[in-house]
């Protein structure tokens, strides 16, 4: 379970997170929605320690995320980045098996390669992709490889940062389905940030909306359309008029 208590983060005078309170129950898929620049990515980065919060607490299974063994903490996480963030200098299989080739989870090279190929197969990629380099793959294939890397070490918690951005609707649907299936199979806790409402409905058990640096609304995905919150309603209908200012 992930608990955020009064999480705060500013960049200069700009307060991005102004006291975020959020709970992601274990084994559930939480999707955070919100406009561009609303602080969704910063929220994920604070949990992972990529950004240092100015205030508040981050608890993962009751443990303060900012204290204790960092490697052991991160070993429980997998993350799919918005642009996949694959290492250009490594072939696909070494990207997928990165964690299995070094550090505490190190395995023999042949075994790591086998696991990588198995994970690639799980995300719908054939074994001949394993020896290609990321630059040789399409955007959709790179996302799949990123997903395979995120699940390679069987993490308990998986973060998805804009998993369908830049993909065509069919490929976006494929990625959504994979995320749903894989997190269910693994029993992992999932936290996704997106502004793609198709993804929200495909992936989420729970939805939270981040606006003005705070969680504006949260609840089960089934209640999203009847939230009664004008901000959520404007966001899910994509209306240019409403309480959320839209630049024209």
């Amino acid at each position: 379970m992930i608990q955020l208590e009064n999480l705060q983060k500013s960049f200069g005078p700009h307060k991005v997170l102004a006291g975020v309170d959020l709970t992601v129950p274990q084994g559930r898929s939480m999707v955070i929605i919100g406009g561009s620049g609303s602080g969704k990515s910063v929220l994920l980065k604070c949990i992972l320690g990529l950004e240092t919060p100015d205030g508040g607490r981050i608890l993962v299974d009751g443990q303060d995320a900012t204290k204790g063994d960092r490697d052991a903490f991160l070993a429980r996480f997998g993350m799919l980045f918005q642009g996949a963030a694959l290492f250009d200098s490594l072939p696909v299989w070494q990207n997928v098996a990165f964690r299995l080739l070094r550090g505490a989870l190190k395995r023999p090279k042949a075994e790591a390669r086998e696991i990588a190929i198995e994970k690639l197969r799980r995300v719908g990629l054939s074994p001949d992709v394993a020896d290609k380099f990321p630059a040789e793959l399409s955007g959709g294939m790179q996302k799949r490889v990123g997903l395979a890397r995120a699940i390679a070490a069987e993490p308990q918690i998986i973060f998805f940062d804009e998993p369908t951005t830049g993909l065509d609707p069919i490929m976006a649907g494929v990625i959504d389905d994979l995320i749903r299936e894989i997190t269910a199979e693994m029993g992992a806790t999932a936290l996704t940030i997106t502004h793609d409402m198709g993804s929200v409905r495909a992936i989420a058990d729970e939805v939270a909306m981040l606006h003005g640096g705070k969680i504006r609304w949260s609840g089960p995905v089934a209640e999203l359309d009847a939230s009664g919150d004008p901000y959520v309603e404007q966001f899910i209908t994509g209306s240019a008029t409403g309480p959320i200012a839209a630049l024209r």
Partner: protein
Amino acid sequence: MRDAPSLPVRALAGLGGAVLGLLAMIGRVTLFALSFFRHLLTPPFYGREFVVALGSIGWLSLPVVGMTAFFTGGALALQIYAGGSRFDAQAVVPQIVALGMVRELGPVLVGLMIAARVTSSIAAEIATMKVTEQIDALVTLSTHPMKYLTVPRVLAGLIVVPLLVGLGDVIGILGGFTVGVKSLGFNPAVYIRNTWDFLEPLDVISSLVKGVAFGFISTLMGCYAGMRSGRGAQGVGEATKSSVESASVLILTANFILTGVFFSV
């Protein structure tokens, strides 16, 4: 309402801001260097990345280093011969070429070539990794970017650049020898004996120590600029440019200081 500051006050404020900015940068680079040494001495070590860095910094720099040293040595021989003929001192070509290449031109030219070729490449690569979130990905995969990216490259620079400097010295002398023998009519055996007899161990040691210092500076500044890169293509371009500028200036400054340390009378 307060009056706007006068021109001298604004100029002074600008100067003060620039000095503070420079001091802040020196502080950041120093902390970065200390962090390198701390991570160098603590596991894990990434052997594969170190071997790759040895190849890209050392092996792949050989052509540019070799050609630069050879032609500089040749040009130096021509200049000394032409200049020396004004006061009947053409015979000292082998000695001056050897001294000039080993003490000064070899290390500095190799250092600047490494700054142009390696520092820029390291800065651009790491900056691109930062912009495309590959550095963040490393962290989430429990891999410290300092250990994985900086330590292998700087360690490789520390080891391989002095070797390149030594090789550059030899190739530079060979360039002078080729011009001396083929164009200026020197006897090959005499040229080699004059070169060999004239050089002292301290000349070679100073050259190699400069190589170590320049290897450290060039790779460290590449990593530093890459890690501190701003966003987008402009951030990568700025990081690359500033890495080469700062490495070049630091190499020339370190060269002046080391020359003073070794040869001040």
